[in-house]
Structures are given as structure tokens and as C-alpha cells.
């Protein structure tokens, strides 16, 4: 059977996008976080919109059952935003939950059933102590065959890192340079969890040591700071603290409409022209440990649908839950060759904000934060702002961003979503 080329039944556009500040948010629950994102999104719609016209909600949420003892997040978000009795779906696909939600929203409009939908996600994670958060996150891998073997999420990605190091000679410094790059972007993002460069963090530690009258560490530069295990301890070797994204509270959402009505809301809609999604095996069952096969398949689907090639993409938000994940992502997306070229791209400045292929200009999951059920939609928020020239101090200015992409991985690669955006 030859499959016909996948295409949308009709065009879909984003006319609004917003997010809550990301970080440790002790006084709010998922519902308030989603409300913040909803209000921020509303403010971004140039000519405004009537919330009564939203016909359905798609809400990504990974684990409120575990973190808040609360399920039915779709209906609760509909209620708090005044959107009842619209149908509301809670969608769970681990860290890809909200990209799957966005994709389902796209499909809802492309199918012709709806003209306007709200899609996004929310996650409140900071309520549990670290050991329970480790447990909650590990539920995204195979409890029977992976977590029970002792694997945690930092551990699964660390294993991919050891395989990458063995196969390609990748060094830990290559990985740390991804963190340095993403922090230098996130430092310019007022909604980031840690809006600081690693050099800023280093200088804060020095200031603190001085203040407490302790011996003041003398690091030559941020790489030497990152090599100091007292300040950058191993979490799951070779992953150190600064290879890992933080545990973050946050929400994000976007307003999707049919292309034919998009100009009612703004002169600059962002069109979604490609979407792909794939599932994958457990890590040990894959033919490769140095790439995420589901991401390659999702990317291929999205490129084919959009009828463009990886070279056409100007900027991308990719899933850098751990530094090795960005190295694999930029190869799986076809931007760089798998192996040394991808591993050294950050160090060589190719993926910097002013590089040939800016990656994670928002700061990425690493610096902006990773509220798992909101992450994919937050990537789309960044793309929306960058493509419209609204990203403030972190705006990419050395190119016309007419095509962009987001890449969101669920768990350790058992789900992957890639979406391609166009500004006309």
C-alpha cells in the first residue's frame, strides 16, 4: 500500500500565544498557571478575540495525578478560564504532552470540525520532594523494565551520552557547551526559570563565598566552574547538575484558528505547515542509542508535509531536557551530521543566537525550565514571538525567520512531535 502524502484538510494558523512565568511557583496550582498563560495569550492577539468562540480545549498535563492528586485537568482548565461547556481534553504523553495537545488542536481545525481551539499545557512540579519527583518523572519510562533496573530520567539520557561518547568521541565539555549556550539565551528571557548565564551563576557563587567568609573559589572561566564537583555535582554520570533541566512549574497555551479567518485577528498569523508525530520503543529495544528514531520519523513527516528541507528552517526550539538531548535533536532534525558535527555545533557557535542555525533561543528546557506538560506549547510560544519579531532582547536579528520548527520529545523518545511554522 502506498500512502498518499499527508496533508491538512485546510490551513491552520496561530493568532495568539502566551505563557506563565516559569519557575518555582509556591502559591499557585495548575489551574492558576494555566489561567496566567491564557491571559498572556489573550494579550497577544492583535485585534482581540471573543473567548466564547473557542470551541474546544486541548490541555497537556503529564502528572497532576502524582504532583497534585488531581486528574481531569482539561475540564478544570475549561472551568477556570470560563470556557465550559466546551469539550476539554487532558492529553498525557509525558514531556511531549502539550505538543501532542497542539497537534490534536491542529487536527481538530484541519478536519473542519472547529474554527477556533485553545491548545497548551500546564505542570505544577515543585510540590514533591526530589525523591518523589524522581519517581513521578520515571513513570514516563517503562516501570517494569527500565525504572526497576534503577534507571532515572537523567540516567537514561546519561546512557545515551555514554553510547555517543563511545561511538563518536564526544566529550563532556562538548555537552557542557550546550548548557553554556542555552543559559546565555535564557538570561535574556524574563520568563525563564533561571534567567542567568552560567558566568552569572559562577559570579554569584563567588560573591556568596565572600559574603560567608569562606575560601573564595578561583575559577578561570565558566568551564572551570562547571568542572568543580562541589558546585556542579554528578546527577547521573556523565550528566552533572548543569547538564540537566530544572524541575519547574509553568503553563503555556496558543490560540489556533482556521487559516481562512486568521486575518480577522492579526495581520501576522503564524501558519502551521507541517506536523509529524511518532512513537518509539524503550531505549534498550532501539536499533540505535545515539539518536531518537521517533524524532527522525516525526521530522520526516513534518518536512514532507511542509515540502521543505532541514536547510530551509531558520531557527528551532528543540527538546534539551539534558545536554546530550540537544546534540541528538539537531542531528535527528537533519541540521547537523550525527556525531562530532552535532556534538561540537554549540561549542563552535553554529547554534548560538547569532549563529547559522540558532537553537533554543528561549533558553531551552535547560534554562527556561521544563514544566513537562507545558514544554511543547512553550516552544511554540517562543517560535510565535520570534517569527513576529516580538522576542525582545533575545530576538534573532541576523536573518528573516520565515520558517521555524519545534521538536518535543515525550519521555526518553517513546513519543516525538515536530511542527513547522511559516510567516508569510
Amino acid at each position: 500500500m502506498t500512502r498518499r502524502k499527508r496533508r491538512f484538510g485546510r490551513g491552520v494558523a496561530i493568532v495568539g500565544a502566551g505563557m506563565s512565568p516559569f519557575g518555582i511557583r509556591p502559591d499557585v496550582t495548575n489551574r492558576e498557571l494555566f489561567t496566567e498563560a491564557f491571559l498572556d495569550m489573550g494579550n497577544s492577539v492583535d485585534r482581540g478575540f471573543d473567548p466564547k468562540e473557542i470551541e474546544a480545549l486541548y490541555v497537556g498535563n503529564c502528572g497532576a495525578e502524582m504532583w497534585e492528586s488531581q486528574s481531569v485537568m482539561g475540564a478544570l482548565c475549561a472551568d477556570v478560564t470560563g470556557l465550559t461547556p466546551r469539550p476539554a481534553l487532558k492529553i498525557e504523553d509525558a514531556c511531549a504532552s502539550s505538543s501532542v495537545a497542539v497537534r490534536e488542536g491542529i487536527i481538530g481545525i484541519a478536519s473542519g470540525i472547529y474554527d477556533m481551539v485553545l491548545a497548551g499545557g500546564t505542570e505544577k512540579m515543585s510540590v514533591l520532594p526530589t525523591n518523589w519527583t524522581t519517581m513521578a518523572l520515571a513513570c514516563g519510562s517503562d516501570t517494569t523494565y527500565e525504572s526497576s533496573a534503577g534507571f532515572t530520567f537523567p540516567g537514561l539520557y546519561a546512557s545515551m551520552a555514554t553510547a555517543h561518547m563511545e561511538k563518536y568521541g564526544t566529550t563532556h565539555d562538548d555537552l557542557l557547551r550546550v548548557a553554556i549556550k542555552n543559559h546565555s539565551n535564557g538570561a535574556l528571557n524574563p520568563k525563564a526559570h533561571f534567567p542567568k548565564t552560567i558566568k552569572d551563576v559562577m559570579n554569584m557563587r563567588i560573591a556568596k563565598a565572600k559574603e560567608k567568609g569562606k575560601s573564595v573559589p578561583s575559577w578561570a572561566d565558566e568551564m572551570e566552574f562547571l568542572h568543580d564537583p562541589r558546585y556542579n555535582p554528578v546527577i547521573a554520570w556523565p550528566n552533572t547538575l548543569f547538564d540537566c533541566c530544572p524541575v519547574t512549574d509553568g503553563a503555556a497555551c496558543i490560540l489556533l484558528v482556521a487559516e481562512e479567518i486568521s486575518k480577522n485577528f492579526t495581520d501576522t498569523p503564524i501558519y502551521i505547515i507541517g506536523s509529524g508525530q511518532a512513537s518509539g520503543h524503550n531505549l534498550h529495544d532501539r536499533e540505535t542509542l545515539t539518536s531518537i528514531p521517533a524524532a527522525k520519523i516525526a521530522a520526516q513527516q513534518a518536512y514532507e508535509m511542509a515540502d521543505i528541507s532541514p536547510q530551509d528552517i531558520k531557527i528551532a526550539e528543540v527538546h534539551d531536557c539534558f545536554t546530550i538531548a540537544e546534540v541528538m535533536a539537531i542531528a535527528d532534525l537533519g541540521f547537523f551530521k550525527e556525531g562530532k558535527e552535532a556534538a561540537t555545533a554549540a561549542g563552535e557557535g553554529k547554534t548560538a543566537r547569532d549563529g547559522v542555525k540558532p537553537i533554543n533561543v528561549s533558553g531551552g528546557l535547560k534554562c527556561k525550565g521544563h514544566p513537562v506538560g507545558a514544554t511543547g506549547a512553550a516552544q511554540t510560544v517562543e517560535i510565535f514571538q520570534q517569527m513576529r519579531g516580538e522576542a525582545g532582547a533575545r530576538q534573532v536579528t541576523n536573518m528573516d525567520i520565515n520558517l521555524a520548527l519545534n521538536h518535543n520529545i515525550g519521555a526518553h523518545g517513546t513519543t516525538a512531535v515536530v511542527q513547522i511554522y511559516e510567516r508569510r
Partner: protein
Amino acid sequence: MKEIPFTIASFENFLKEKKLMASRCNKCSALWLPPRPICIKCRSDELKWVELNGKGKLVAFTVIGVGPIPMIDAGYNRDNPYCAGIVEVEEGPRISAQILGVDVVHPENIKIGTPLTADFVERGSWHFVEELAKERKMYLVFRV
């Protein structure tokens, strides 16, 4: 052994007997570890249990100080980390397991390709409900 269903419970019962068992497709001979109820290569659901020789080699690994609760309860922590890895068994497939007998204090000395042998250790269960987490189970591990 065809009456034994291809379930997780069956696999775990074999571990209790210190046997590492896989499922083999009767039609295309594909070998599945962890065992599968359907051959995802030829889609046959006619499989049989086969015992593996327990030999393998390390293909990827990590050393963890901050583990999940069953590992913390088993005595592992930052000062006493453990190695988790992916093992390719001699018969072909790969599986995840704790790796014993490697230098967890110097993970840079742990070599991919290290030959390993299957073993079985008892630990608590993986569950959010404390009562269920207390249940002792036999787990597959590999040793140098």
C-alpha cells in the same frame, strides 16, 4: 512450556527461579527480551519461552547517586552510587539492568563492551502506594 502466558508476571516468576527467559517466535525465530506476547517482526502470536545463557556485554551505562525510592531503600545514595546499564545478551537482544562489580567511584573507568553475567537480586517494589512498595521482588542484574 507453552501454557505459561507471555506476561510480565511470568517473566518475574522465572526471575524468582533465577532463570532469564525470553520469548522466541515460532514462525520467524525472532527472539524477544524482554519477552513479548506478539512477534513485532512477523506479527505472529505463536511464541515459546526459551532460557538464555545469561552472558552479555555492556553497551551503555550511567552511575546514579540520586535514585528512585526502591534503590534508596536498597541503600544507594550519593555516597554509595550504583550503575544502571543496557546489556546486549549473547543471543542478540538488549535489556536494562543494574550492573554490579564495576567501579562506581570512577565511572570513567567503566568500559562499554565489558563482558557480563546475569544474576538475580531481591529489592522492594516500584509503587507510589507504600503498602505495595513493600513487596519484595526478584530483579535481573548483571555482574562483571
